[in-house]
């Protein structure tokens, strides 16, 4: 590292330009082909609300909405998401679509360290947009890919259950 030796660029340094619509805004990034979507979101786009927990699709901390469906952003390369519409916890928060879920999670303390929480909320949002009134068993089933070490899950199930009921009562299911 001392001195200034002749340095030559090689193939490994090549990046690819990808474009997404992230949280409603067009963005472009230069990414290495091996870079995962979660790393691209967290590093290049500074959207650190999406977390990396296991990097193998087992824990659910990295869930984001991609073209309307929930995906593990650790299981795809950023280049594979070229052209996609992606919503992260930051965008879902700003748009207000999960405000009732967030308020209910807060009221019931359905989170402790908060590291799993963005993934839980993204998944809960998907569940409630598919099933208006899931049973507690269905909620637990839907969360079966979201690992939480802190809460024991019950308050999370209670919060989602309460929001499902409230949405149905107000007739405003999405």
């Amino acid at each position, binding site marked *: *590292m001392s001195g200034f030796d002749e*340095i030559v660029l090689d193939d*490994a*340094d090549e990046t690819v330009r990808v474009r997404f619509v992230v949280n409603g805004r067009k963005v472009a990034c230069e990414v*290495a082909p*091996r*870079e995962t979507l979660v790393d691209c979101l*967290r*590093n290049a786009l500074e*959207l*650190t*609300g*999406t*977390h*990396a*927990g*296991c*990097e*193998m699709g*087992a*824990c659910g*901390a990295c869930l984001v909405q991609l073209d309307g469906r929930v995906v593990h952003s650790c299981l795809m390369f950023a280049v594979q998401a070229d052209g996609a519409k992606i919503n*992260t*916890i*930051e965008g879902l*928060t700003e748009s207000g679509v999960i405000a009732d879920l*967030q308020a209910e*999670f*807060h*009221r*019931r*303390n359905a*989170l*402790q*360290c*908060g*590291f*799993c*929480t*963005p993934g839980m*909320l993204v998944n809960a949002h998907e569940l409630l947009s598919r099933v208006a009134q899931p049973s507690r068993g269905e*909620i*637990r*089933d839907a*969360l*079966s*890919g*979201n*690992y*939480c*070490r*802190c*809460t*024991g*899950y*019950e*308050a*999370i*199930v209670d919060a989602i259950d309460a929001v499902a009921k409230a949405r149905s009562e107000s007739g405003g299911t999405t």
Partner: protein
Amino acid sequence: MSAPLTSLDRPNSYIGRSVPRPNAKRLLAGRGRYVSDLRLPRMLYAAFLRSPHAHAKIVSINTDEARKLEGVHLVAIGADLAKICTPWTGTLDHFKGMISAPQLPLPLDRVVWAGQAVVAVVAESRAIAEDALELIEVDYEDLPLVVDIDSARAAGGPVINPGSTNNICFRAQLDNGAVDDAFAHAAHVVEEEFSFGRHTAVTLEPRAIVADYDPAAGALTVHHATQTPYQFQDLYSRHYGIAEAHVRVVATDIGGSFGMKLHVYHEDMAVVGLSILLGRPVKYVADRIESFVSDIHARDHRVRARMALDAKGEILAMDVRDLTAIGAFSTYPRTSVVEGNQVIRLMGAPYRFKNYRATLEVIFQNKVQTSQYRAVGHPIACAVTERLVDMAAAKVGLDPFSIRAQNVIADDAYPQTSPTGYRFEALSHQACLKRLHELMDYDGLRAEQADLRKRGVYRGIGIAAFVEITNPSPAFYGVGGARISSQDGAILSVTPSGEVRCLISVTEQGQGTEAIISQIVADQLGIAQEHVKVITGDTEVTPHGGATWACRGAGIGGETALQATRALKRNILEIAALILQEQPSALDIINGEIVDAGTRNQRIPISEIARIAYFRSDTLPPGTQAQLTVSHHFAPQGYPFAFTNGIQGCSLEVDVETGFVKVLKHFIVEDCGRIINPMLVDEQLRGGIVQGLGAALFEECRYSETGQLVNGSLADYLVPMAMEMPDIVIAHVETPTADTVLGAKGVGEAGTAAASACVLNAVNDALTPFDATINSIPITPIKILKALKRF
């Protein structure tokens, strides 16, 4: 003692109230600030080459190619860091005779577990650093291995630490009363050998650290995802020779810890050294596979235990031998023998017997270290005791509730000293037992169980009483020479606008420390909770203290906040009295207003006192110096620990064809003294129970014969997920400690302490018709099928 400290009807009465955590909204919006999110200017990234061997000599390391890779700034081996970092040894003086080899960030000539970091690379990205790892060549020469407890203890077998004659780290013995005599004259003796697998914390955010050494200032800042910033400030200062006042440790949001992130890790120490060598910030975040092979593991005990009883089922004596294997080193600075020490001292804790003998043997092996993880030692002591009590009940012909009711220390018989040496101030086993019986509808569950058995459905009901260690005094670490504080400190200030800032040494990991501290401050001062800002986790601004571990945040941190607030209130009222021409004792504070103590008539807001004190001190009487900032420290006195107690119950179903266990419902009655926030206490219990259920049914670090961890990923190591977990029913008994004004004890370990014992008893209860028993945790389907002779 049981009179409430405050009435919930009073304004600003927050102690005892379920209020949401103010700081949780950030986390819900994806605005957490975890160390793994942090990016500093000119920051570099570290990666580590790890040993593929469990025990080997390092013959040579060739890093030439790695150093040449573009983007690589530094490749460091053990000798590079040994030049600037002094070694550490994981022993404490009060564990007489314990030994452990000195440790360095990276090894000089020998690796002692598979996964140990050997070479560090620092590069412009983590990816480049990992590319460089692949270019490093290390030549190893295998050494004989010690993997399991038996081979570690075998005479003439391989010895891990050169210079030692065996693999013993520590031995301890307790002997009280007349144990041999009690067994000789017992009407009944029950005996069993238990095994408890290794498991690990699996925090969702792996370990993360950013070390930032500024050579111009001679100052080190470490952003460290830990529970204990002051402990690390002290260690980085002493091992790297930087004045303590020039070391700052910042512990912001943390994605789970549970005790795992308060130990010294080789990589973390290395990252500090790498930043010193480079003069730039260096970041390291363990990936999941690295976490499994380098985070501390816990448990790994084999316990032989027997219990003597008289003809009526009165417990007379216990005799216990605990063998525990801890890896190749004892962890620094808290050691790896605390768990075993607590196992032998918590045995039989709920019960009245006087004769007790225990042997503890702590053993080295070629695996990653074990050390303190949530409920240290409790689950082992609880499972052994409670299973023996159930076995005794069956032998004597008593119901599990009856034998416990007969043997627990009576609620009115305190204080008591256990035959293991613990002093109990006041516990409530009888009240808890009675409450659990109602809560779980025990008779109804038994009737249902009997009906279902006729139809070939095998349900089990288990209960387990426990005692938990909380609010530790210096007797825990300080007496052993560890620079780990048992006191806490707080600085409280009134802002010029009349709000309150509280800087306090206890830390937040999501359990709600900041919330309960703001509740206590608001309650004791007489202001709205939203006007209290609590700041934690930064050694530069908060006073030195123990921080949060071993269930001390509410009990010790809470009392610190309470006493500091009372001091601040006195100062505010003193100034108010001067302004209002009153005696301070004639005044009080409600909702941020100074009021007449008798009539509660409003006189002047705190904000006005603050305005005058800060901006118009000329209008105060000459000689007045308003003190609207107070600092206060509190160290626990009286009992060395504030013990808590409770009892858990479990209803589950065993599928005797597949060996699968479905937990149907779990119950707990718990007594943590004064409850500050019932919702947060219940969430601690639920989370703790689920960690205990994971240990009971799923979690085990499995090793091959060559010392390789074979299930070190989140796909292979099973953790409890929402699908498998039951709803948990909670009730409380409140016996405040009289050692503090607040009266709070800890609650963080209670759930984990007894959940696995409860499941063990329930599974054995379900298997009763088959004359099959289980004595090993985790209780996997294969173990059940083997017990049923179906596998």
